[in-house]
């Protein structure tokens, strides 16, 4: 039993949800005793919830280029990208841009 749970929200849009069981927003509970970065979260997502064609989402331990990541509606490029340390109740949004327009 962990002392604390780390609850966060994961959100997918513009087609990214198709790789995750077509669920647009979900709450996930991580082990709060550990430190969670986005790098580690991506590994967890790959192992636990990435159901379709993982190569369309993950590439070289990061998200595939062209997928935008926003933490609480802020571009992850301003937050340290993979090294960002996840906080309780963070909302992490993945937007796919890899389709025609």
């Amino acid at each position, binding site marked *: 039993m962990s002392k604390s749970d780390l609850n966060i929200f994961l959100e997918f849009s513009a087609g990214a949800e198709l790789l995750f069981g077509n669920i647009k927003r979900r709450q996930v509970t991580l082990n709060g005793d550990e430190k969670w970065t986005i790098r580690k979260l991506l590994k967890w997502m790959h192992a636990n919830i990435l159901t379709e064609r993982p190569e369309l989402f993950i590439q070289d331990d990061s998200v595939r280029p062209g997928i935008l990541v926003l933490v609480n509606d802020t571009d992850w*490029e301003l937050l340290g990208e993979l090294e960002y340390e996840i906080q309780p109740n963070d909302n992490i949004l993945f937007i796919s841009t*890899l389709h025609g*327009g």
Partner: protein
Amino acid sequence: MPIKCKTECGRNAVLKRPKTSDALCKECFFAAFEAEIHYTIITNKLFTKGEKVAVAASGGKDSTVLAYVLKLLNDRHDYGLQLILLSIDEGITGYRDDSLETVKKNRDDYQIPLKILSYDELYGWTMDRIVGQIGRSNNCTFCGVFRRQALDRGAKQLEVDSIATGHNADDIAETVLMNILRGDTARLRRCTDIRTGGGENTIPRVKPLKYTYEKEIVMYAHFKKLVYFSTECVFAPNAYRGHARAYLKDLERVRPSVIMDIIHSGEQLLFKDTVKKPVRGICERCGFVSSQQPCKACILLEGLNRGLPKLGIGKKSKGDRMRLKQDKELALRERANLVKNDF
């Protein structure tokens, strides 16, 4: 320790602009995004006051943002344009029927009239039926060729002065790469043009988002909560473009300016006089722009109607042979019929 907006407006930054690396807040990003598109429109003289402009609308992110921004800039800067959404219904169940719903929503949200033209009414064939004939290998050729002409036909029907398309900077950089990889000098020559066509008998096409990064278009749509459609076509996605796209995105990660750099390279290319230049003429069958006689759309259509769907695929000589063979067979059958009738 949130990062502050670079403009010193006091607000927190929400994104890093790929073009400039600036950290901007939502409001300053909107202002910069819109001002740059306005600048592109003005410096390239894309429109003239009083013109009627068709916005090629697919329901996707680019055309949705284009329609929204054109409407906004038209009001803000008094361009005096009459905007109209033009959508093509290729007849692809589960794809275009859904995206057209998004376009209808754009029509209502932005108060821009909408015209939908279908392949069925233009050519007598829907993509669903074409795929039934040709299978899933060359169907994208049909779709692409027909769509290009369908926009021209729609624009003619609507009597517009120009067609605005949602091609963004990433699209154009991709196209430059693809044309280099294919050695397609004719397309390489014109693919970076912000305005194409516009001679006699042709309606010019303009690309107001030519210098706008895809990331910013997606971010803009997200922060403005614009509704767009984002499902991949149910038929084969364009594999070759997909590779060029993935390659470009990999490069962009290392060096975000690569997109502008490739566009710049494309713009500066000069061709030797010895490089063959296709002559743009008018198809003698349908009267629309073409560099060959008859145009590709007419050949593809002839193939479908003759029951020779591969007629327009591949070399012209192969198509001529197919046509000849079928004519011979038909003539033989005709003669056989005549003989029978003698009894």
